[in-house]
């Protein structure tokens, strides 16, 4: 299995801002790589460099076997790109949009029309095919935009925050489409603020901060780095929180995190079963009633927090950025 995307030591600066600071990536063919990182980490910049929209200052990158710098046209013939916008002509109907992009992919007019109809069918837009895109709902426009990046069944697909601002149903639809493409052999590079999206779709994740990869691996590997399992204790009364926290901390041998809003104490457990017993005994000793005690795998949020020292973007702030 070859590598569909290789990036070595990519560097890019805008004036004084360093956007990419020695970024490395290697994505095997037919897999989904998730790029995760806080705002301004350099995710979009990386995608734009790899999609030939932006020249890097230094470094080397190949996409689908073609060199990004020396042979951008060959790269463009093999990629699809969905950026943070819905990049479609709003005055034109869905079908005319896809026909236009098909022709620009150098399909014959007849082939472009056939492909447009296939894609409309596949993305559930057949009924809206002749309506102008400005009359589409947000979800429909997003699907049209995705359809436009699938014209030639791209070898490599770049998705820059494909579901930002989408409701859960649309998000699921987009995920399904991405999965079906991957099943057909497409390689996907996906940037996202939503950790569950990366969890759902990505075979591997690269966490980016300040223009470089600070951690990478499968979602499971990254979660394991946080310390295996997590213990959640929810107490009945808020006044018990501090006592419970010290009991849990003693049992697990660390400082737990406390979420006052949901009356929850969370701590990583290296020896999960032993720690669980210790926590239960400790709570009994201090006389705190627990409403719920659970042992679970860590979330990517916790991974993110530990790696970058910052929580991942919440949904609302991510949408503000997109707006």
């Amino acid at each position: 299995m070859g590598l569909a995307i290789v990036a070595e030591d990519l560097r890019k600066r805008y004036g004084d801002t360093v956007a990419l600071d020695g970024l490395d990536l290697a994505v095997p063919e037919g897999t989904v790589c998730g790029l995760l990182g806080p705002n301004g980490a350099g995710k979009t910049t990386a995608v734009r460099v790899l999609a030939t929209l932006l020249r890097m200052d230094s470094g080397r990158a190949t996409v689908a076997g073609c060199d990004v710098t020396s042979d951008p046209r060959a790269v463009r013939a093999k990629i699809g790109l969905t950026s943070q916008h819905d990049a479609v002509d709003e005055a034109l109907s869905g079908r005319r949009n896809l026909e236009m992009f098909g022709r620009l992919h150098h399909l014959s007019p007849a082939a472009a029309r056939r492909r447009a109809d296939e894609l409309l069918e596949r993305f559930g837009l057949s009924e809206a095919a002749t309506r102008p895109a400005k009359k589409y709902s947000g979800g429909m426009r997003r699907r049209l935009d995705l359809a436009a990046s699938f014209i030639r069944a791209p070898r490599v697909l770049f998705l820059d925050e494909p579901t930002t601002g989408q409701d859960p149903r649309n998000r699921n639809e987009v995920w399904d489409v991405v999965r079906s493409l991957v099943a057909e052999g497409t390689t996907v590079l996906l940037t996202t603020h939503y950790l569950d999206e990366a969890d759902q779709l990505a075979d591997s994740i690269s966490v980016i901060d300040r223009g470089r990869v600070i951690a990478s691996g499968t979602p499971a590997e990254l979660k394991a780095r946080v310390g295996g399992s997590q213990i959640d204790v929810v107490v009945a009364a808020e006044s018990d929180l501090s006592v419970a926290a010290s009991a849990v901390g003693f049992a697990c041998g660390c400082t737990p995190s406390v979420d006052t809003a949901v009356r929850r104490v969370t701590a990583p457990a290296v020896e999960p079963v032993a720690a669980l017993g210790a926590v239960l005994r400790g709570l009994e000793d201090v006389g705190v009633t627990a409403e719920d005690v659970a042992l679970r795998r860590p979330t990517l949020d916790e991974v993110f927090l530990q790696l970058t020292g910052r929580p991942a973007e919440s949904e609302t702030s991510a949408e503000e950025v997109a707006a």
Partner: protein
Amino acid sequence: MIARLQWGVYDTWTITRRDLITWVINPVRVVGELVFPIMFVLLFGYVFGSGMVVPGGGDYRDFLMPGIFAMTMAFGIGNTMTVVATDIERGVMDRFRSLPMAPSAIVAGRCSADMVNSFLGLLITIACGLVVGWSWHDGLLNALFAVLLLLLLRFACLWIGIYLGLIVGSPEAAGAIWGLLFPFTMVTSAFVAPELMPDWLGFLAEWNPLSSTVGAARELFGNVGAETGSSWIASNAVLMAAVWPLVITAIFLPLSVRRYQRLSR
């Protein structure tokens, strides 16, 4: 190499077609193109027109129409700028740039689409003029020459529009810039003869590239008010109607190309 050239032409046609389709799918567009000229004809021809003086006498509407033709061409700056800025903001420009199409076709397609649009718009405005009693009096050949000079002005405006559109990058900003440019398109000989303006304003109006095209169109259409004033610039209108647009193009075409290339910096 030949193949590249052929694809370049095919891609340019695809982008042009994208724009021309809107005439078919949205026939209301014809109405939209009519609004401006009709508004100006009504406003100046009938409302202000009664108080307007044409140097040397003559019908004011005969004087006015070549001015409106040239204005219609100059308004092309706003159109082109807005379309380019919208494409950038919506990410459509990025999508084009990520396709295996000929990069030059993005600009070439814009160019040919706008020229065809403006030609159709000009035909509509001319029809408007005929309705209110304007006509050419100096032969069809001269009239066609006048149309050619008007389109040459539009071609120059196109490059100003592309350049500004690439700079501003959003339709809102494009609107604001157009608001600033708009008065500049009004200080011309289109509505009032410059010699009737205060000296400094008259000077500006005479040297406004638009005025040369207006003057040339009056002369070639055989309308009243040709060669108003005795200044060099006014009496060489036809020459300057060719020179000005070529100079503007020579400045803004390379600027636009540079700016376009900078999108990937």
